[in-house]
């Protein structure tokens, strides 16, 4: 079973200096993620969720502990990777910047909370979707455009808007565009930072529906940071509850939400409004 682990986190932590005081934004986080599995990280604002996500995506370096990822080689076969001494799980801290950037472009996706941070706002929707493929060396305009169109269809965007700037899209459309832009290289792991925050409920529901469908179709593994327990319930197989930088509880989503053990989780579950 250990062979097909995708991501393995052991005691990961990150600290920041605040004034003259050291503060741990998150600490002692350990979990495993398998291919096709969706993990939700929930907790209140300031509990270290987003910092944890940035550690996982190697946007920040761990101050203690480590994050291991199952790195494939560029052709996607594990055999060549093992020949290069990169068999199976590799500590992200050991990888070169070039390799990390390559991973972030191909094997990973990162959906930002604010679509504006994840999109290139001064080029059209089509160019946004094509960017990763062009970074990987695709130099055929017709094919790039075809891919962009098919992805716009898949995320239920109006294909007539392909040449429009993302600034003219609505919030929900921007978020869809961001998802398409990330999935175009068929990543195995997608990080999402509050993907539905700031959208109204009906748009949220459709986006969640889409995400659930894509995750299922593409066998994506995903780590979703959210403070919305409904999102976790809908999408995630397992969840991690964080408070003050610590993981206070983790387990299967239904178990955690229906039978919370830790006092904070109980508070969190009981705080949800039901209309």
């Amino acid at each position, binding site marked *: 079973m250990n062979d097909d682990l995708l991501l393995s986190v052991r005691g990961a932590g990150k600290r920041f200096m605040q004034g003259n005081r050291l503060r741990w934004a998150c600490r002692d986080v350990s979990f495993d993620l398998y291919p096709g599995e969706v993990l939700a990280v929930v907790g209140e604002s300031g509990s270290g969720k987003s910092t944890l996500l940035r550690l996982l995506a190697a946007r920040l370096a761990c101050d203690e502990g480590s994050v291991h990822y199952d790195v494939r080689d560029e052709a996607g076969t594990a055999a060549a990777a093992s020949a290069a001494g990169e068999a199976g799980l590799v500590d992200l801290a050991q990888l070169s910047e070039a390799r990390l950037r390559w991973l972030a472009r191909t094997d990973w996706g990162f959906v930002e909370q604010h679509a504006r941070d994840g999109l290139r706002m001064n*080029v059209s929707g*089509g160019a946004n979707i094509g960017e990763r493929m062009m970074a990987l*060396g695709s130099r055929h*305009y017709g094919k790039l455009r075809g891919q962009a169109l098919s992805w716009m269809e898949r995320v239920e965007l109006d294909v007539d808007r392909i040449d429009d700037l993302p600034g003219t899209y609505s919030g929900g459309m921007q978020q869809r565009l961001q998802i398409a832009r990330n999935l175009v290289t068929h990543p195995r792991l997608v990080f999402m930072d509050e993907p539905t925050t700031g959208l109204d409920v009906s748009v949220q529901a459709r986006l969640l529906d889409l995400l659930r469908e894509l995750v299922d179709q593409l066998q994506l593994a995903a780590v979703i940071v959210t403070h919305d327990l409904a999102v976790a319930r809908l999408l995630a197989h397992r969840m991690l509850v964080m408070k003050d930088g610590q993981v206070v509880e983790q387990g299967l989503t239904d178990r955690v939400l229906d039978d919370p053990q830790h006092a904070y989780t109980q508070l969190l579950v009981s705080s949800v409004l039901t209309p």
Partner: protein
Amino acid sequence: MMDDNYNFGFLDERTKKMIRRAMLKAVAIPGYQVPFGSREMPFAYGWGTGGVQVTASVIGRDDVLKVIDQGADDTTNAVNIRRFFARTTGVTTTEKTAQASIIQTRHRIPETALEEGQVIVFQVPMPEPLFRLEPRRRETITMHALAEYGLMNVKLYEDIAQLGAISRTYDYPVLVNERYLTSPSPIPKFDNPKMHMNPALQLFGAGREKRIYAIPPYTAVRSLDFEDHPFEVQRWDHACALCGAADSFLDEMIVDDEGSRLFVCSDSDYCGERRDAGYCGTQQAVHMPVNLLPLPLGEGRGEGREEGPRAEALAPTLSQKEREVIQ
């Protein structure tokens, strides 16, 4: 007739040594932008301070210097820089491309093919081709280091999507030696193919941005494009009105308020030599009714329009050539 109050080539010897060192590195890594300690020159930025410093550092007493601006030897910038070097070095100057050992240029590569042993020095306003696309300098340095140039193609994609064709007509990005993405300086893309496997040494100096880069002789230079939208140079429906050349880069000048346009070679030396050899054009402007003119293809959509060779060619300054025709 060198003015003895100046050191040879205006710059002091230590500065020239520093610039030569930067140039050696630039030649060793074709297309790579080498930072250097750019000096204040007795010119305003934008008038070729980078090119002047490069020329001042490579020039020797036996060199023959040619300076061109927009292809012409008689424009203000060219005349000033030529006089500057005549005074501070005393070297022979020429207007003939074939006789020059150093050619300092702005906006053009001469039509006459360059030869081994010649040096062409470009004045560069913005050496960083990713400048408009990625504002963080640290990020562009990383992109160059890792040869991540997909972003440039995103820009070209966007051009085709919005305008139907790659709209960039000057400063068209090239890949040097299949490695470094490089700005060819604001030469028209018509001149890009001349850089490929050119037997002359091509040096680029950006004074304000403090960068030097180079394309050594016989180096591959490829203009970026898409497989299904290959790189193409401009073509004209007309020949030069003075010399009849159909293969050179033409300046288009509006000569009256009824849409008459005069097409003449931008390279004044090339045009003059052809006329001396007996070639002759129609000697008249072409009448183009305004409603038949193609719509302008938004050249780079406001991207440094003032740098475009075309924009300046259309400026209402009459050159020597034009005056000859009108008379």
